[in-house]
């Protein structure tokens, strides 16, 4: 059919609303928690939980979403990424239905790091509702005595968690910066404003050449 052919000729599709909502939601959460809110504060924990929920939803969408949102549209492949990089250095450009192979790798790296940040955060904070219980637990431990072995191991674990959390969070911000640079580069070479298409969902070429 003519219609399907025309659709395929267009190649890449715009992003669906769920991809856009989760993308900007997570981005806002990461920026807020990474730069503005105080680590360990109640608002930090709430934003963290919200961002984690969005991440879970996006990963679920990776299995059941429309074609270009699914993991199968951008399987993690180092060889494909290397081939893509070679094409880029030769100045060739190819249109992908979803992420380009390098962008896909970055998506997986961001998701993995985000998962580490979220899980270590949850391990430290517990449920946001159980703040009171956490306080109770803390006083219980304190009453056990300052030289209680229980408390010592607890503290060690907390320190380890906190360090992993901070390290992963810094890595996340670093990766996000590269991600933004990559998007800028791809936008320039493909002449498609990718930031706008991530907002509106439409993939249009830049008007003035």
């Amino acid at each position, binding site marked *: *059919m*003519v*219609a*399907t052919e*025309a*659709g395929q000729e267009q190649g890449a*599709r715009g992003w*669906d*609303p*769920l991809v*856009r*909502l*989760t993308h900007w*939601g997570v981005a806002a959460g990461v920026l807020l928690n990474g730069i503005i809110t105080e680590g360990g504060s109640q608002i930090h924990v709430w934003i963290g*939980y*919200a961002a*984690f*929920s*969005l991440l*879970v*939803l996006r990963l*679920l*969408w990776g299995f*059941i*979403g*429309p074609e270009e949102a699914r993991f199968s549209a951008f399987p993690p492949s180092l060889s494909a990424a290397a081939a893509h990089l070679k094409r880029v250095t030769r100045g060739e450009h190819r249109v992908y239905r979803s992420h380009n192979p390098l962008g896909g790798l970055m998506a997986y790296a961001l998701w993995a790091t985000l998962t580490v940040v979220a899980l270590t955060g*949850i391990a430290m904070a*517990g*449920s*946001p*509702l*159980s703040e009171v*219980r956490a306080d109770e637990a803390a006083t219980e431990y304190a009453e056990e005595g300052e030289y209680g072995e229980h408390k010592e191991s607890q503290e060690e674990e907390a320190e380890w968690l906190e360090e992993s959390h901070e390290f992963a969070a810094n890595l996340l911000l670093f990766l996000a910066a590269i991600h933004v640079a990559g998007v800028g580069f791809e936008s320039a070479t493909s002449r498609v404003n990718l930031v706008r298409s991530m907002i509106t*969902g439409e993939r249009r070429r830049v008007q003035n050449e």
Partner: protein
Amino acid sequence: MKKPSLSTARPARRTMALAGLLVIQSLAAVFFVGDAIADISLNGFNLHIILESLVAFALVLGVMFGAYEMRRTIERARRSERALAAASGALGELIETTFEAWGLTAAESEVALLTLKGFDVAEIARLRGAAAGTVRAQLTRVYSKAGVSSRAQFISLFIEDLLDGPVGATGAEGASQTAAV
């Protein structure tokens, strides 16, 4: 070609609303699952926690089915968008070639197209910033070139083509396929 703005705006808004709902649902689901796990690890099982876990489980299922439904909505919207683009592309092509065959001037083509779209003389005059008399004269020339005497006849020329004539390649293909089946 005109963008199919009205017809794509509605599904887009619907999927956006669905996506928003899914986001809120998953916030709730993660919250409840987290709370259930925290409660179980603190207090072990009792009737309250079993109920709470069931609620959390139902929420997770709801998110999954909601997401599946949303994908179907998106795919349906895309299919109809494609079909619409093909159909309006074919009709637009037909209209364009027909106008050319009649030898309409640019101004006459525009007036003729607006007439096909259902605007009356006064509206066309306002849209084009011309006098109603000018538009009426242009329309008369369009009708005479098309060999019709009224607006109704003029419009039915295209309806007729759409109903049985070869409407571009798609129409012919579709017609022969239907015939074959």
